[in-house]
């Protein structure tokens, strides 16, 4: 079930109509949450409910075992991680590994071929396996006590707002919240609505409108020969992916608020970042912190010297690239960001640039341009296409004004300009005292009008529906 579908609107209406009845009753609440979440997930393909059940049960019992059998806790943790990584490997990476092996064999002239695997990738598998793994790892580290009720566990693991595309929530943050059932305040409802409406606006108006132009550009059998065209397309993609993913996160956070739960902020205006370090503190925050806590720091982090810190960062970023997609161009995207981060650590160029006149604005611009270049590897269908697009972007002699005009002449450019304008307002508004030109009383009237207009825009100016990009991860 997708947030931007009619069936979800109906599902949501039924859920929130029944939620006040269930939320104050302990056991019915857990069952209601798990049942609703399983319906939400099973709507896509009910067979994969068995996978989430199996994967979840392994971690539930591993968690209990780790606490009860301290001598065997390492073994149980390894079993739990193997279960999660194993299912992720089978569904997501087997095809990639066999494909790479076969390509290498054909390059080497060998005759051995592995049969091609064509498995359906279960929606959100990368998200819920990571969430599940953090549960057992936190118990192993003594930071969390396992829950003894299987419904509690599955309510945490499969809570529908964040089940398929995050934010990745830690058990130690969510489980205590699931226990509480205080009444919802007017402020919570209002904050929830604002997040949901902004999320839908980002997804159905901005991301889907931009997607139409970007998809046409990447669907062509050979990339159009115009640098200007490709720069516009790639800037469009930069905002498409930001709005697609942060839109989903906002909707998830808003739905969470309506249920009485707080999910962490996942995007904090990443394109206003003045360095790559800051970019990764603002982009997909729940995943970045997951990798920091469960990969980067356990591998040694920055405790064993600068060289080791670089190596660990590279390993983490390459794994992050592979997490996004089982293909070499995703690995290259991760590698390019590692390169940016390494160069930044070695030269400290953003800080130096920031000292120049206007440097405070130049550094975010430079980070944005480099990020846009890296997105080529993320969006391209394969490595060959990525290289071809990259070459077109820097062939400044090729300038087909008709192509650029075609892009400028459609709705996507209006949407793009609005988003760029919004990010600029955020950037230039940073470090300035918050001025409130309107009294709180008037704001209480104006804000609902603004949100109502935004709902109107979402209904009438939504672009043709597209799947959320991060569903495929």
């Amino acid at each position, binding site marked *: 079930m997708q947030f931007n579908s009619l069936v979800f609107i109906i599902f949501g209406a039924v859920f929130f109509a029944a939620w006040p009845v269930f939320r104050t009753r302990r056991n019915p609440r857990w069952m209601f949450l798990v049942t609703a979440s399983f319906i939400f997930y099973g709507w896509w393909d009910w067979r994969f409910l068995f996978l989430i059940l199996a994967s979840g049960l392994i971690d539930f019992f591993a968690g209990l075992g780790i606490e009860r059998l301290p001598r065997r806790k390492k073994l149980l943790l390894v079993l739990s991680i193997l279960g999660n990584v194993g299912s992720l490997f089978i569904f997501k990476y087997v095809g990639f590994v066999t494909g790479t092996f076969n390509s290498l064999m054909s390059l080497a002239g060998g005759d051995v071929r592995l049969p091609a695997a064509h498995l359906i990738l279960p929606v959100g598998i990368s998200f819920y396996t990571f969430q599940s793994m953090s549960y057992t790892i936190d118990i192993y580290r003594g930071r969390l006590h396992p829950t003894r009720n299987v419904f509690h566990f599955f309510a945490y693991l499969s809570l529908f707002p964040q089940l398929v595309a995050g934010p990745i929530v830690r058990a130690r943050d969510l489980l205590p919240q699931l226990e509480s059932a205080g009444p919802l305040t007017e402020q919570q409802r*209002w904050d*929830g*609505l604002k997040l949901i409406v902004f999320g839908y606006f980002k997804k159905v108006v901005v991301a889907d409108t931009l997607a139409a132009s970007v998809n046409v550009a990447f669907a062509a*059998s050979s990339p159009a020969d115009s640098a200007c065209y490709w720069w516009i397309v790639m800037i469009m993609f930069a905002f498409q992916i930001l709005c697609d993913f942060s839109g989903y996160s906002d909707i998830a956070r808003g739905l969470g608020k309506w249920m009485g739960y707080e999910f962490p902020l996942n995007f904090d205006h990443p394109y206003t970042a003045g360095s790559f370090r800051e970019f990764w503190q603002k982009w997909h925050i729940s995943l970045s912190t997951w990798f920091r806590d469960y990969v980067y720091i356990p591998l040694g982090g920055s405790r064993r010297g600068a060289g080791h810190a670089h190596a660990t960062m590279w390993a983490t970023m390459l794994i992050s690239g592979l997490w996004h997609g089982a293909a070499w161009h995703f690995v290259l995207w991760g590698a390019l960001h590692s390169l940016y981060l390494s160069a930044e650590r070695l030269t400290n160029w953003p800080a130096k640039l920031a000292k120049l006149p206007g440097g405070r604005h130049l550094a975010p611009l430079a980070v944005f341009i480099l990020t846009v270049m890296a997105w080529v590897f993320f969006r391209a269908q394969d490595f060959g296409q990525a290289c071809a697009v990259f070459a077109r972007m820097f062939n400044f002699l090729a300038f087909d004004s008709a192509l650029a005009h075609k892009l400028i002449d459609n709705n996507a450019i209006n949407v793009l300009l609005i988003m760029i304008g919004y990010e600029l307002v955020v950037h230039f508004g940073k470090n300035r005292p918050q001025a409130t030109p309107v009294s709180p009383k008037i704001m209480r009237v104006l804000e609902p009008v603004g*949100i*109502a207009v935004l709902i109107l825009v979402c209904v*009438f*100016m*939504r*672009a043709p529906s597209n799947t959320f990009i991060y569903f495929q991860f």
Partner: protein
Amino acid sequence: MIRHDACRRNARGFLAGAVKDRTFTALVLALVLIGIMGMLRPDKPRGVYPKRYWARKISWHQCADAVLAGDSRVLGGVSPTEMRKTLAEWRILNYGFASNLYVPEYLEALESLLDPESKSKAILLAITPHSLTEDPDVTGQFAELKGRSRSQIYADICLAPLVSFVEYMSFQDALHGLIPALAKGRTQKEFHADGWLAYQRQPPGEKRELKKYYRGYQKVQVSAKMVEGLNRFVSRWTQTGIRVYAFLMPTCQEMFELEQQYSGFDRRQFVEGFEKAGGIWVDVDPCAYESFDGSHLQSYAARQFSDDLAQRIGDLERSRDSE
């Protein structure tokens, strides 16, 4: 009495609470705005609801005596109702789709529209050079609609009024609706149950499609394989007693010349092959009707053309009967 007062107090209290609740206020206001916008939308189509129109059109099966086939030029350029004024005994349907090519899947579907019980079955092929190309970048509307599931089609038919009410509107549409003076021109669409999609653009006479077609023919041209494939179907149909007519779909003079020059379409050669396969070629004036965008006909021109076409086919039918 006391109970009645208490009820009123409760109701007032609830109302006051609801008004103070920003979520409630915003949602109610949004519903009101959606209602107003839906009723006053500037680009409201006429006739059958668009979703219902496409869903029904793609589901037609064994329900016609004569079927009009082709791409967007026939979709907007021939009115079956107008043709029935002359060919009254025929149940005629317009089975044209945007960016349509004469691929085997389409031709099979076309045949399936004919009622097996019909005494005089006919297929009327509207020929445009583009419909005879093999363009790998084009996924025609027919293929897109055919790929839809039964449940989607059913939902489109049932929910069409609701979906039409909240149909997508671009910033430009909304702006032009609010300030009509800003609009350079407006295209009004009317969806007819017989498959015709009538276009009425004010002011008419734009030629914006010429550039697009010129660029298109630089990439792909009429394919001999496609023409052969079509003629194979024509031959099969005529052998089973279906009469197959074909005509060059009218457009504006500039487009006609552009297609003669760049599309690779050889009219004489095509007619020869088509007649050899058993088809009947209908000569029409390819430039005598007004187009609104350089390719497609205005609705009144389409009506006039439908009438002329029906008379020609009627004459041919009568002469065949007298033979």
